[in-house]
């Protein structure tokens, strides 16, 4: 599903450059649930942003579902993001004046899906994350866990190939974190490919594979026995 070869990325800071990713080789198959770990500043978010086409790589190659991701203009990148990727952010990034359902429907709007169908699909995904009865509420009326579940529903709504989550539980307490992980596991059980950046070992343990970044390279990449979150909720 994802294939990365010899990926390099540096940020220019005035006259000198900060070399963040120094040759990453990495691939993800369909249906995997991968945790990306590493200390702060190790380049986890940078990697995820490149995978998400929010940022560009300097060197190396990136292939997503057989499509080489290279030299995309803004419009093309937007279309690919919309079609291939779903994002889940630490701070949820819901649009505050739109109801839960409208937030979930937004990627579908950019796919030019009709209004009615958008709404129906949004309700369907809100139901999957257990928030159907909250569909007309604004984000400000929801708890952190609920917001993240709306964000997950939104990421799912466009039926992307890969879900990318940057510290999805970073702003949540542990109980809520487990609820969100339970949801993510279930989505993964249904066959979706998911990448999660996290600091927290217990969250990483709930994935099926852990990739460790250190100083811009992968120092460890292991398949693990998944801990089910269900038992903690």
């Amino acid at each position, binding site marked *: 599903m994802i294939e990365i070869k010899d990926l390099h990325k540096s940020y220019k800071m005035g006259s000198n450059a900060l070399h963040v990713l120094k040759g990453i080789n990495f691939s993800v198959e369909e249906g995997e649930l991968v945790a990306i770990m590493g200390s702060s500043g190790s380049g986890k978010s940078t990697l995820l942003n490149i995978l998400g086409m929010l940022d560009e790589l300097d060197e190396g190659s990136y292939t997503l579902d057989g499509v080489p991701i290279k030299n995309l203009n803004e419009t093309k990148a*937007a279309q690919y993001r919309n079609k291939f990727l779903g994002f889940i952010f630490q701070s949820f990034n819901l649009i505050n004046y739109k109801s839960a359902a409208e937030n979930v429907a937004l990627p579908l709007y950019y796919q030019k899906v009709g209004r009615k169908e958008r709404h129906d699909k949004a309700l369907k995904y809100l139901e999957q994350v257990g928030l159907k009865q909250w569909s007309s509420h604004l984000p400000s009326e929801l708890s952190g866990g609920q917001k993240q579940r709306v964000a997950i529903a939104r990421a799912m709504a466009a039926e992307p190939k890969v879900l990318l989550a940057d510290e999805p539980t970073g702003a949540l307490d542990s109980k809520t974190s487990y609820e969100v992980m339970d949801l993510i596991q279930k989505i993964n059980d249904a066959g979706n490919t998911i990448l999660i950046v996290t600091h927290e070992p217990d969250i990483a343990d709930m994935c099926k594979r852990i990739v460790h970044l250190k100083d811009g390279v992968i120092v460890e990449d292991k398949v693990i026995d998944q801990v089910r979150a269900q038992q903690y909720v």
Partner: protein
Amino acid sequence: MFDRDIWQEIIYSIKNNKLRTFLTGFSVGWGIFILVLLLASVNGMQNGFYLQFNDDATNSIFVRSGSTTKAYGGFEANRKIQFKNNDIDYIRKSFPEDLEYISARYYANTTARYKSETGSYSVQAVEPEYQIIEKTIVTDGRYININDLVSKAKVAVIGRKVKEDLFDTEDAIGKFVEFNGLPFRVIGIFTDDGDDNAERSIYAPLSTYQSIYGNTDYIDNIALTYNPNYDLTKALSFSNRLENLFKRRYKVSPEDQSGIRVWNYAEAFSDISSFTSVLNAIGIVVGLLILIAGIVGIGNIMVFTVKERTKEIGIRKALGAEPGQIIKLVILESVFITAMSGFIGLFFAWIILAIVGPNIQSPAFANPSVDFSTVFTATIILVVAGVFAGLIPAMKAANIKPIVALRDK
């Protein structure tokens, strides 16, 4: 364009910036308000001018004579030029294509008496076609006709004021009035809207007056209209030919402006038209300058809006919004604010014109109004202005990098 989601966002954005939107919108509304009032005022002046002129046919030419100021063709200066009846026939023969109607004029003053009422009036002794040239409206009876002219009939068409003075409410048609002691039969009464003085005069047959005053064939001047299909250029060419011909006929130097004068309404009209179009242009320029201030204001508010919504735009881009869609959103919002404010300005200007317009009673100013084309033009200007105001902020929005916008800080 008529996407509900886009409108929902625009309304949200406006709601969140009520005061700012109002202040900048006000400047655009004000710009349009001033623009429309200026244009309407110019229009009012124009109407005023035309009303004053409209008394006469707009395709009329007057040929007048005076005394020469230059020696020419063997004659000394200071010679008095006197037109005669045969000048009329001469014009008819010389310009069959150009001429429409023609009449000689002979002026006199008279003391008119009916029973015990008397009054002093000016008399214009004319030919039948003069009615059309002067656009005289006969409300009672008839105008002078060819039979009156042939028989040198002592008949008169009197102005409404003359009738009121002499007859009061009594019926005047068919009655005899003494002009300097001679009995004239009243055959018609005419009006002239807007001009009381014109209604204090009397029309009589040319031949009658010529025979009363010394059996002459003298005439004071010549009034005529030219082919109504002529444009300004053709009209001017005709009046030039006429002038040259008459100067040759009476041996007046081509440079002599007072021996023979040909006065062309079209020329005067075009002078006024160019005057009012200059005023119009000034109005438009001033209005546009004010409008530009408003547009800059709206551009400003849009920059702020975009800045405040950076994160949201980043989220949208992450979810698949293309730059073009973001540009559309910003520009539509800008056009919406501009157009709404502009229409409010237009509406107030319209109300003021509707209230004030009919109450202005001045000969130089009549019926100030905005026509449909002004409104249409204003709308186009507003939409274009809105697009321009939104352009820079929209480009800014389109260039927002989602990764920068989404950084959690």
